[in-house]
């Protein structure tokens, strides 16, 4: 596991005021400047704008037509497309990084998508909501219903998120398909990194989302 060097805000002190989402800032920090990036499921282009402001050549794919058109109207290079079906149209090694931000759980074939990310890009950055987060567990255990949170407000019958996983599950998948985890960060409910020196089960319990920097050629099992 590589280092994560961010300084932690003091408990009770609000995170630094910024218009950018904490996970976007973390992702942007993982990308080397001057590189070429594909953001899969780029939404309305907030992350792409952040990346471009840092001199990164960014492209996007977005499923919703409204999202695409807003991105294009912002001057971003975004095409309408589906992570499950359209990634195959990209050649090998086309990008330095391929980002899948809060989208993995909404794909039909997360494993195939993950493999495609690392075929198209030398590295992949994947962030996803952690279904092992204590609040999720508590709702299922005590409430007896499918969890709903501020960030995931949809009900079970109208959610686009059909493939939730925990941080532990994701790490297992990475091992299975020989993906190397260069860096892993769990963010808590306030977007602050969970301290690194704590064991995995703490991450899986207190991480509201996981952000992973991946590359090819992991050890496998």
């Amino acid at each position, binding site marked *: 596991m590589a280092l994560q060097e961010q300084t932690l805000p003091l408990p009770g002190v609000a995170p630094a005021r910024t218009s950018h989402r904490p996970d976007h800032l973390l992702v942007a920090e993982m990308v080397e400047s001057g590189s070429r990036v594909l953001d899969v499921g780029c939404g309305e282009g907030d992350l792409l704008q952040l990346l471009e402001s840092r001199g990164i050549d960014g492209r996007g794919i977005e499923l919703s037509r409204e999202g695409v058109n807003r991105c294009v109207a912002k001057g971003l*290079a975004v*095409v*309408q497309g589906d992570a499950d079906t359209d990634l195959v*149209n*990209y050649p090998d090694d086309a990008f330095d990084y391929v980002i899948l931000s809060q989208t993995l759980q909404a794909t039909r074939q997360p494993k195939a998508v993950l493999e495609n990310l690392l075929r198209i890009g030398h590295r992949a950055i994947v962030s996803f909501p952690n279904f092992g987060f204590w609040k999720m567990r508590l709702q299922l255990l005590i409430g007896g219903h499918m969890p709903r949170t501020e960030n995931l407000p949809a009900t079970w019958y109208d959610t686009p998120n059909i493939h939730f996983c925990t941080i532990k599950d994701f790490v297992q998948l990475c091992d299975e398909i020989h993906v190397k985890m260069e860096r892993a960060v769990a963010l808590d409910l306030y977007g602050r990194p969970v301290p690194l020196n704590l064991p995995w089960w703490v991450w899986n319990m207190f991480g509201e989302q996981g952000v992973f920097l991946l590359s090819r050629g992991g050890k496998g099992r």
Partner: protein
Amino acid sequence: MTKVQSIKTPSIQGEDRAHEADHPSSPVAKFGTDQPLKLDCGIDLAPFQIAYQTYGELNAERSNAILVCHALTGDQHVNNVHPVTGKPGWWETMVGPGRPLDTSRYFIICSNVLGGCMGSTGPASLNPTTGKVWGLDFPIITIPDMVRAQAMLIDRLGIETLFAVVGGSMGGMQAVQWAAAYPERVFSTLAIACSTRHSAQNIAFHELGRQAVMADPDWRSGSYVDQGTHPHRGLAVARMAAHITYLSDAALHRKFGRRMQDRELPTFSFDADFQVESYLRYQGSSFVERFDANSYLYLTRAMDYFDIAADHDGVLAEAFRDIETRFCVVSFTSDWLFPTSEARALVHALNASSARVSFAEIETDKGHDAFLLDVPEFFDISRAFLHSAGKARGLGDAGT
């Protein structure tokens, strides 16, 4: 809506139109026998001329020029009163001060296509070797031929690299062809409601139109000018059929429904009882006043032959290998002539070439013609695409 009982004979008998074909109101770039145009059919065309209009000012760096490519029946009169019809320019919604193609920022060029009838050499022009109108002696031309001629015009204007090439429909085909043929001369491409190859259905519609023209006895095997006729009935029918393909079921229903034209009850005749019939007849008869029938044959044929992938061993992505041109591809949901699937094929090829491409499908019921109409979302996207490309190109806010 003008009430038209039948397809009427043109009021001005095409005299203005015929005059424009050789002596246009627009500036003309003439190319002599020392500068022949090498056509795909193997013929060197010389001499020939290209008529064009410009709007705005070319900056000192010569870096703000946009070439607008017109569609099948368009011409170079983008943003000025048309010399034959007296109507406003065909893309006034898109081109002008403060418009997406901002004339206070960019230098806009639009030329009449090779094979057209508004001043560029085509079948309606005089053949210098015979002293007669070319007619069917004019060689068959292609979209790449049109682009080659435009490139010679751009050379003549002293412009090395175009900031953008913009076009819809047949104009979009030219815009994409520009990028494929001269990637180093095109900084950005805005391709609207188009495809990289003409579909079987589209070829079929064009064949219908051509057969309508040729079935008119006044066509006279293409030599109607020499014989003092014009196949206005056939050309009007061709236009009527084509016009339906430019609209959509929903747009026709919204505009006309089953409403009657100036009457309450059906006449039990073949008169234009329905508004939609009257509208189509008007479209047909007004078209023949400004367009040459042979030109219509040649230009539809050029579109039919268009297939960029075929010129690259069947692999479309090969046409754009390592291209640095920025692309924006736009399609419209109700366009069934150049549907979104065609645009997506282009986008996939550009993705495979790792080109910088944006692709937006715009929701509208206005059909293929949407690119000529007031569709604010389309304007926003076009403006933003050009603006961000302008920043990358180093164009200042004033453009000059």
